[in-house]
């Protein structure tokens, strides 16, 4: 990102937050039933941002696969569920969580290899929509497979992350700002994951090969990059990201069938940030998470609540009208 764009972001983002805050304050002044204080606003905002990081964790998996193979991988959600189920299953067998983590990663690598061999290789050179449908097939398969193996009861996944709420900044605003500690850890994990991925993509040999494949399959092949290996690697990495997301979401909500559906929450994040950009997934997640939370808490009351279900999609859609490739997506160049 250019320095100018960076400054625009650093100045722009708090500006937008402040403007929305003042807007709400104005509404509160005009309408006495509308509750608004800056402390409460900050609390909602921070909760939303932390929630957003969780969305980003899922969106990251999508981005990785789309970048490297051009496949819009709908199965990422069920991969999250499958990873979490396997992890819990192994832990229930008495394994320490670190061992379970390693074992689950191994299982996910196997899944990645199988997907590459059985699904992607025969479908090479097919139109994107066919590949997309194939990943929906994988979605159904993994969903059923995971639950056949491990059962469909709601399970508790606990690897010892503290989950008591804490108060911060008690001096600055009245009563302090309430934050869920679990969300903080999740956000930190997300940050570390992105940093690791960034190093992996920028510095390692395989990472460079991945970027080359993302740019142009044919050119990558012609300079001797093995496409099959790269795809297996990228699905494995996506599986690992799914595992992390599964641990975080599973710890928050319990491991159950609905975990597969959080993929739907990651989709608006994805189009807002751009299908091909890792920073985009993070920034998109933050925007969607915060926007959704703030809208639900402050505006949801006007229209009957539960606007979380669609607000993110509307936000992303309106945004795309102005920037069809998302925030950080590669500029779409079309030739006849």
């Amino acid at each position: 990102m250019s320095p100018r764009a960076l400054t625009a972001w650093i100045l722009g983002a708090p500006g937008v937050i402040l403007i929305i805050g003042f807007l709400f304050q104005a509404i509160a002044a005009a309408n006495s039933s509308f509750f608004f204080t800056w402390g409460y606003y900050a609390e909602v905002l921070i909760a939303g941002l932390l929630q957003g990081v969780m969305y980003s964790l899922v969106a990251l998996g999508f981005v990785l696969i789309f970048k490297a193979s051009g496949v819009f991988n709908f199965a990422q959600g069920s991969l999250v569920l499958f990873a979490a189920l396997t992890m819990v299953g192994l832990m229930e067998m008495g394994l320490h969580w670190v061992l379970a983590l390693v074992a689950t990663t191994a299982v996910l690598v196997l899944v990645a290899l199988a997907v590459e061999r059985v699904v992607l290789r025969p479908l090479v050179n097919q139109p994107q929509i066919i590949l997309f449908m194939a990943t929906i097939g994988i979605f159904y398969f993994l969903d059923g497979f995971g639950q056949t193996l491990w059962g469909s009861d709601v399970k508790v996944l606990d690897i010892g992350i503290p989950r008591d709420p804490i108060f911060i900044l008690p001096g600055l605003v009245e009563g302090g700002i309430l934050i869920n500690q679990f969300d903080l850890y999740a956000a930190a994990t997300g940050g570390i994951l992105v940093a690791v991925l960034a190093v992996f993509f920028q510095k390692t040999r395989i990472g460079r090969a991945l970027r080359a494949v993302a740019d142009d399959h044919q050119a990558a092949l012609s300079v001797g990059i093995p496409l099959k290996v790269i795809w297996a690697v990228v699905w494995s990495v996506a599986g690992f990201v799914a595992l992390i997301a599964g641990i975080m979401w599973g710890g928050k909500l319990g491991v159950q069938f609905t975990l597969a559906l959080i993929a739907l929450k990651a989709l608006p994040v994805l189009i807002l940030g751009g299908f091909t950009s890792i920073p985009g997934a993070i920034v998109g997640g933050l925007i969607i998470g915060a926007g959704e939370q703030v809208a639900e808490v402050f505006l949801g009351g006007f229209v009957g609540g539960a606007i979380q279900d669609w607000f993110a999609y509307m936000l992303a859609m309106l945004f795309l009208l102005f920037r069809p490739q998302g925030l950080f997506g590669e500029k779409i160049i079309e030739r006849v």
Partner: protein
Amino acid sequence: MFYREAGQFKTSYGADQAIFPILQDKLALAGIMAVALFVAPMIASTYWLETILVPFLVFSMAAIGLNILTGYCGQVSLGTGGFMACGAFFAYKLTTAFPDLHIVLVFLLSGLGTAMVGILFGIPSLRIKGFYLAVATLAAQFFLIWMFNKFGWWTNYSASGVISAPPRSVAGDLFITGPLASPIVKYLFLVVFVAVLALIAKNLVRSRIGRSWMAIRDMDIAAEIIGIRPMIAKLSAFAISSFYIGIAGALWAFVYTGSVEALAFEINRSFQVLFMIIIGGLGSILGSFLGAAFIVLLPILLNNLPSLIGVQMSVDLIGHLEFMIFGALIIFFLIVEPHGLARLWQIGKEKLRLWPFPY
């Protein structure tokens, strides 16, 4: 030997442009219609009519609608469930507000209403393309379901949020909705209704407008350069597709299930219809029917399979295995024939023309 066009000469432009130019095709179609109209109602049991044939026809309608948008115009949509809900709830509001309105008219009007909604949600397609558009259509899906769920006005303030179709007849005693409707009448009504609308769709896609959709699908910039207006082509595809899907939704709620809540049209419904057109064949009206038949029959088959081969399993396990097999079969079909069942039929026809002398 039996299937060839040799010797069938056309003497007018009209004959040359017929939908089925070959005599054998015409006979086959007439045969299928005759079976559907006269033989099927006689031999099919109530179970067959209610759980297989009726949903098959309703889904065919939805699949034709989505095929117009995705198969012919190339705009991937995941909002099918939302548009079906639109049709269902529009039809409910119309028929409860105007009880004297003929039920067929109600269906058509609710289709028109859905077409308006479709245009509205189709506007982003002018700027957004590909998967970005697919995700953007999810906005329609979630927003519409939320709206029908949230506002009691749509369900006439029923406490459960469920709408039940009031009894309506096509003519005289021939009830097609409500408790008095007999499966045979429902089925025959659907056969005629779906056949007429499918015929219209088939003609639409061969007409000027259908060709402009296909040009947009193949490459929209090139289409624009040769003088096709993308806005009109895309929005008309959204409108007509939503018209069909809306009617399918109304039929689903009124004729198939009889009572329905907004959650019946969730995202899974959208995927189901998308599967139908992909398995059946993108850009093919025949494919819409084949795909609908496949997707309607497959779960029923999978459900009955364990008891057929005599294996005892818990209901839970069957459900999960069903998911697995469904997913695996989808992948299998995509690998074997990515262009769908309609393509298999085409290949079969080519083979049949040469048979039994392939050289």
